[in-house]
């Protein structure tokens, strides 16, 4: 039997359509990308049926980690341009008689994530180089009644930006006493309306179930 000889094809494949699609996808992703902010502590938000999206600006976010540390983030998204951060830190420093240099204020402004540093360690925190070295100082904002720095942060944030709304982003494993303390502090500072950040979960109930 004669062997059937397959015609040898050139090993090149035309990659143009593939490149085209890649280009489109890449452009789309680049244009829609909103960077996921890195948090100093991993947080698993609880689920709810609420479908309201988080507002883009004028929010401060209280981050409660599962090891009961409290962090605060003042400006998100478009707010960053208004440079609230240095003002808040300057006010906070004024209260504790700590003078922050221009470079330190700038460093604080540039720090892209939530802050959980006791104010007395703030200078060391700002001087530390790199995220790893900085995270050592992120021991959480003190919320005890003897040294209630969180209340002051909230007070000054609201002074600098009166339109600010409060979000609470808590890990579902955060213990209730911590949550209670934070809520009490907010209530004391007359922040009574706030938003709990949750992930979406579907829940359905039907009339039949109700009539049972």
């Amino acid at each position: 039997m004669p062997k059937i000889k397959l015609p040898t094809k050139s090993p090149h494949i035309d990659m143009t359509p593939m490149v085209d699609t890649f280009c489109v996808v890449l452009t789309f992703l680049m244009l829609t990308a909103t960077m996921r902010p890195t948090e100093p502590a991993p947080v698993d938000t609880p689920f709810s049926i609420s479908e309201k999206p988080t507002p883009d600006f004028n929010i401060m976010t209280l981050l409660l980690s599962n090891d009961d540390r409290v962090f605060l983030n003042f400006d998100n998204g478009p707010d960053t341009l208004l440079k609230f951060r240095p003002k808040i830190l300057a006010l906070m420093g004024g209260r504790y008689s700590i003078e922050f240099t221009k470079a330190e204020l700038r460093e604080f402004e540039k720090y892209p994530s939530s802050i959980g540093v006791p104010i007395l360690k703030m200078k060391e925190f700002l001087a530390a180089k790199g995220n790893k070295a900085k995270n050592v100082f992120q021991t959480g904002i003190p919320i005890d009644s003897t040294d209630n720095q969180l209340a002051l942060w909230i007070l000054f944030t609201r002074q600098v930006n009166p339109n600010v709304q409060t979000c609470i982003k808590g890990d579902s494993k955060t213990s209730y006493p911590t949550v209670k303390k934070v809520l009490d502090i907010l209530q004391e500072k007359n922040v009574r309306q706030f938003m709990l950040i949750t992930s979406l979960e579907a829940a359905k109930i039907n009339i039949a179930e109700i009539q049972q």
Partner: protein
Amino acid sequence: MAEIIQEEKAGGKKKAKKHAPHIDMTPMVDLMCLLITFFMLTTAFSKAKIMEIILPEKQKENAPAPKISASRTLNIILGPDNKIYTYPGTVKAEDFNNLPPLAETDFSATGIRQKLLERNRTLAKKIADFNDQVLTGKLVISQDSVLGGIRQLKKDDDTGPIVLIKAYKGANYGNVVDILDEMNICGIALYMLVDITWYEEKMVETAAGITPSAATAQK
């Protein structure tokens, strides 16, 4: 370009070498693959959702507690290990020797949800009917009016339970959010987060079989 240059050369009759029109695009594709992967991993596609809650104004030290009818009151205490304890009515500090038993339930659809729906049947049915009418097109109104309509239904209701949510120290934030969510699902009109009292803590400890000393050690 190549041709122009060649024409300038004196009497160049040589034909320009014809290159194959293919360019090796592999490195470009590689790079794009990397970029796409990077962007896909760092992009937050869906924005986080929020649940709004409103706390009551801070009460003054010796202001009298607001009066609510005991028959409509349902107390929910969030216990340790994702358990829920409920009891109806009110308990006073005086009768701490004779505390009512707690009913134990959980966060499943047959647990606390069933219980809440049972007590909130009239209102839940009204809300479900209302939603149904909107969905089937019998009632054509805007999204805002739907929310307003539900709010009005809740406001008019005077049979549903008044739920007091309390949390024992072993509870966590997830439990709180879950129970508030359950309030939304069941369409409870009146609910609030209140502090747990010492005798309610005692009730939970009896029900869960925790000795008070162990509870403090846990904390």
